[in-house]
């Protein structure tokens, strides 16, 4: 398990400043979809009960209904849980040295990247659409001098505020690593 106070390859003087997850509206939307899926068999059952109650009381229809409902319930529960895991395991950890980007894509794909703060060149915050504007969330794109130049973290809450915060931390770290930064810029 990951501990915010004991990160992998943590340096002595390195400390976690903050961690970022996607906006809370994401799990709320997932829960909303889940509740709709839960409501479907309930509505179906009530409809059958009010129109033709014998429909699901036959020797075949009743076992089919029981097994089908159980399968459906387990399937949507697993779908809901996996969607929440996807949300929960996508995280950006900002320390005073680096940003650790952890992205979970489904159950079988996971990416972990590290960005050294002093190598960050540009931080861009974007908010597009009515709902993102109303709930104040959007994308943050970080451009670095490294091989993989772009990192985008989607649906971040308060993206403008967070991008300013990241830039502040980058400036502070760049002062600490001034010599390293200059030699990288000049290529000497």
């Amino acid at each position: 398990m990951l501990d915010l106070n004991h990160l992998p390859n943590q340096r002595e003087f390195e400390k976690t400043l903050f961690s970022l997850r996607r906006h809370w509206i994401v799990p709320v939307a997932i829960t909303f979809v889940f509740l709709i899926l839960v409501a479907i068999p309930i509505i179906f059952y009530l409809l059958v009960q009010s129109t033709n109650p014998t429909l699901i009381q036959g020797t075949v229809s009743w076992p089919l209904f029981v097994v089908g409902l159980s399968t459906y319930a387990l399937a949507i529960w697993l779908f809901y849980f996996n969607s929440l895991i996807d949300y929960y395991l996508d995280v950006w950890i900002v320390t005073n040295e680096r940003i650790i980007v952890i992205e979970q894509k489904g159950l079988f794909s996971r990416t972990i990247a590290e960005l050294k703060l002093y190598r960050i060149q540009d931080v861009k915050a974007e908010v597009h659409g009515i709902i993102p504007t109303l709930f104040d969330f959007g994308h943050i794109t970080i451009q670095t001098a490294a091989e993989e130049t772009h990192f985008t973290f989607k649906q971040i809450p308060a993206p403008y505020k967070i991008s300013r915060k990241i830039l502040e931390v980058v400036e502070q770290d760049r002062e600490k690593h001034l010599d390293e930064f200059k030699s990288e810029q000049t290529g000497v």
Partner: protein
Amino acid sequence: MITAPLYVLLILYAIFLLGFAFFSLFAVYHLIKFGFRTLGNFLMIFIFLGMCVIVLFVSWQYINQIDWLQNVVLFEYGNATQYF
């Protein structure tokens, strides 16, 4: 007349349960290995497994009441002749 035992349905259900168990264990493994050491993480695992146990227990209660050994008529020749 073509008939099939009702437990065929139960076999299909068992196959689904195997797949469900595989994906569930993998999801829990993800949370244990990559999740944060927080109460929320443990709570998520507990709620997920708890809900699975409840659904499976309730399902078992209903499944247990059904006679799965009875044969079901899938196709009856007598009824088919009306189409010819």
